[in-house]
């Protein structure tokens, strides 16, 4: 997924990871690290590849939460908010489920 990142391409993966670790500590991340964090879609290829058995996928998940400001640190990547998310789900439910199903299932 890194090819979809708008961040500058990094020559060294270790340098990018250092930027991710900075984010996890609540510090500013490098553009390359924030780029990776922004596009990680949890393929999980990194998990068996990691020589230190760190679970990079979880690392990236936590980094994303942190970079979004979700853990109380300054926000560093764009929050793609969808204020209609839950109401849209409820609307589709109303279009397809019976009143009894809405009451009992949702």
């Amino acid at each position, binding site marked *: *997924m890194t090819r*979809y990142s708008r961040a500058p391409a990094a020559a060294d993966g270790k340098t990018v990871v250092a930027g991710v670790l900075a984010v996890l500590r609540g510090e500013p991340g490098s553009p390359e690290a924030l780029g990776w964090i*922004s*596009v990680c*879609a*949890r*393929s*999980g*290829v990194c*998990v068996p590849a990691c020589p230190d058995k760190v679970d990079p996928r*979880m690392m990236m*998940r936590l980094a*994303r*939460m942190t970079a*979004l*400001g*979700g*853990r*109380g640190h300054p*926000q560093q990547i764009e*929050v*793609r*908010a969808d204020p*209609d*998310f*839950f*109401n*849209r*789900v*409820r*609307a*589709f*439910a*109303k*279009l*397809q*489920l019976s009143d009894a199903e809405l009451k009992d*299932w*949702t």
Partner: protein
Amino acid sequence: MSEPITFWYGCNVLRHGDIIHSCLDILRSLGFDPLPVGGPDYCCGTVKDANQTAAGGMATRTVGRFNALQRGRLVAWCPSCHTHMNDFMARANDTQFAMTYLVDLIYANRDKLAPLLVHPIPLRVLVHKHIGFNDQVEVNRIVPELLRMIPGVEVIEDGYLAPGYMCASLVAVPGAMDDVHANTVRAVKATQTDAWVTIFHQCYRELCGLEAQGITQVYNYIHLIGRSMGLAYEDEYKAWKKAGANAVELIGEERIAKVGVQFFERALLPELRKRPNLHDTERGPAK
């Protein structure tokens, strides 16, 4: 005696009432007593990455509700919910249930499923696969095996693996979903298959626009299992998607009034009208 289970269908699959109903019928046929729950009041919280206070509250609330149902097995439909339960919810809250993923449960009971697959479905299909999630549940191996149990279905292997673990997470990344659409069209045209079959509902809703564009048939695997069992639930989401702007007539004024005309036009209709962004060379039917 049927085993009582909680069937946690999640949030976004509420776009596909036919899939939920089919899953329930399949589970009952396999000897389970499923209690279906989902929607925002049972949200796992995975959509709240930017607000961990809210995410944590949702997790505690939802686990508490599952515990209160006093059913020892929770069966998850959504890969996002399944992952979030394993990675976060169950680690931070006391769960009084064990979780199974639906694909695993159906596969474990495939001997009971086989005699129920009575209606042939003569289709050559490709299965839409992602790289991710397979280390948690081997969906890329199991779903094709389940489909091969359906008389008439021929599963063709293409080797294409989409990035991530499901398509909805790719939509927010510029270019990523366009590439998935392009690779899907390429694979269908190269193999001359009849249909593209998704494992997850998130992929189904992003890819069924290809059928709306006349490229290929698109199904979720549950659609084909259900059809072979003789289940007759209509795929309304696909019908609305194919109708696009005319979905208003299909849905009808009465149902639209339930959700509000303004909200329907602002928040639902654009999704139904949205089409894959294909290059000219990718358009046109595969067969």
